[in-house]
């Protein structure tokens, strides 16, 4: 019984700590700050250097512009 209380106590402590941590993240807008200063610049850099298809090279069919549904 005591062990059970101990485990429950620990679990409560961990959950309580996690809750407090989450509340801190929420209250101090740490999610926003991490995204703004960390994640977004990283992703933007990635998108900026991504290899992309050059759309100007795409054909433009004007003679028989009736497209078949190719399923």
């Amino acid at each position, binding site marked *: 019984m005591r062990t059970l209380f101990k485990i429950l106590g620990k679990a409560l402590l961990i959950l309580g700590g996690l809750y407090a941590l989450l509340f801190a993240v*929420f209250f101090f807008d740490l999610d926003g700050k991490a995204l703004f200063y960390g994640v977004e610049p990283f992703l933007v850099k990635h998108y900026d250097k991504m290899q992309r298809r050059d*759309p100007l090279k795409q054909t433009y069919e004007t003679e028989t512009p009736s*497209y078949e549904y190719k399923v």
Partner: protein
Amino acid sequence: MKKIDWKKLKETDWKKAAKDFWYGKPHGERRLGDLYMPKTGLYKHREWRGVKDTFYYFHNIWLYNYAHMVMDIMKFGGPVTFAKGLWRYRWMGQTYLPVLHWFDRGLEGMRGEALRASAWHYRAMVCVSINQFMNMFKADANLHGGQHNDAWKHTFAHKETVWGGVFYPWQDRFTNVPMEMIPYFVTCHVNNHTVLNYIDAVQSIGLPGDPCPMCQAEAGLFVLDDMPDYAPLVVTTNEACDGSVASTAIQDWYLDIPLFALPQPMQFDDPLVQEHCANEIRELWKFIEDQTGVPFDWGQLKKRLERQNELQRFEWEKWDVAANTNHYPINGVAQALYRIYQSQYGDHYIWHDTDKRVRKILEKCVEQKIDTFPKTRHRVIAWSCAPLYYSHWCTWAYNCWGLNCIINMDSLMFDMTIRTDNLDDCVMDMALYHEWAPMRRMAVGGMHHIFELWENMEKFHCDMVMMYDQLQCKGMQGVHGLFEDEFRARNIHAIWMPHALPDKRTVSRSEIRTIINDYMTTVMQEEPLDPSLLDFDDSESW
């Protein structure tokens, strides 16, 4: 270390401090502007709204929505698909992640039932958005080694301005995903940096800067090769304007798949146009049948339309409360975005879930006569197209000036239910619904429609107009002077809010605030409720 100011501590009114802690500071003492970090729009800390509302926000909005975003991703396609999409598409990575900040901006200063009802609207929009981009990614050949999988074969692409309802007959077997709704429309609200890439991209191939920036961005998505290859056919439309028609040509170039053009007649008052429009819808159905080999299903159409009618009926109830009481618990931005999203996209289970929750809140407000926006000084109607990068201006305007945006033009568009007792009547109603789309119902088919403003002002008991002035909308620019004449003749207080729809570079949020501040101080001779919100720099914010 900072010294303790004993003198200040001594002077502190502890009773009031405890009250503020428990209930939150009263409007007027909040100084919300002090919470911002310079330029970024990030918060030094999120607002303390009193114990009850702060923890409601923490549990039922912040935690709930983060958790449900993850759950929705699991439900609609899984984390691998999501991660692939995020890595591939700029609009995805830049937009999806800061979504909770979008909530924050829209819900600043909200308390009680207004906070709750408005937040549910946001939750619904997030859910539908996740559903849509996950459907795109599941079908996207770009994410599947160029292969056209089964999902690709069972998805229809269409312009975001095609009402999703025209695809109801196939919705048990096919999915329809508007091409630009998530990559363009939602991104502007959530993170206004993203869209600038697309506007620049289309101008880089020679397009001048003056066409409607919405159409520019929609075309730019394709020019920048940032559009998933997720469907074997596409349906286009002429809504909202000449620019939509014209930009479709660029989209078609890059899509290079079968295209059906579903036009909306311009002169929608004319009874003669209805049959023509109904026939266009029938021709679309024929096109889908021909292309897919799957027949039209009247049962599906009827079922979905009836569900959609339910949504419309509740919307009318909401309008009734908004128009005639001060118990309406939905703020201006939640009202506007939810309504345009829901009515344009069509039926979805989350709208019904949301409406159920909101109904409870609404009924509570009415029964208990709760004054949901108690600091309202002016009831405002917003007219014309809103700045997408500052759709939450109304939250700011209420907090700063007590301007309560009751209703807006786009909300009033699809103002009808659709008959479902027989197909002929049903298609005729669908035609009219299709014609009464956002940016059209009051904008084309005769100038008198745009002046429906006056009767709606009266209906919603508004005493002020926020007149959106989309600088690149030829239709609205073309009627500018007559509005000026009418405002003067009717002695109406109207604030012109210049903007360029998605492009914050033309008129910044800060400039918009200055224009409102100037009007409120010089013309209305009023004092701000929260002076800390008058001027702050959020130039780099999402």
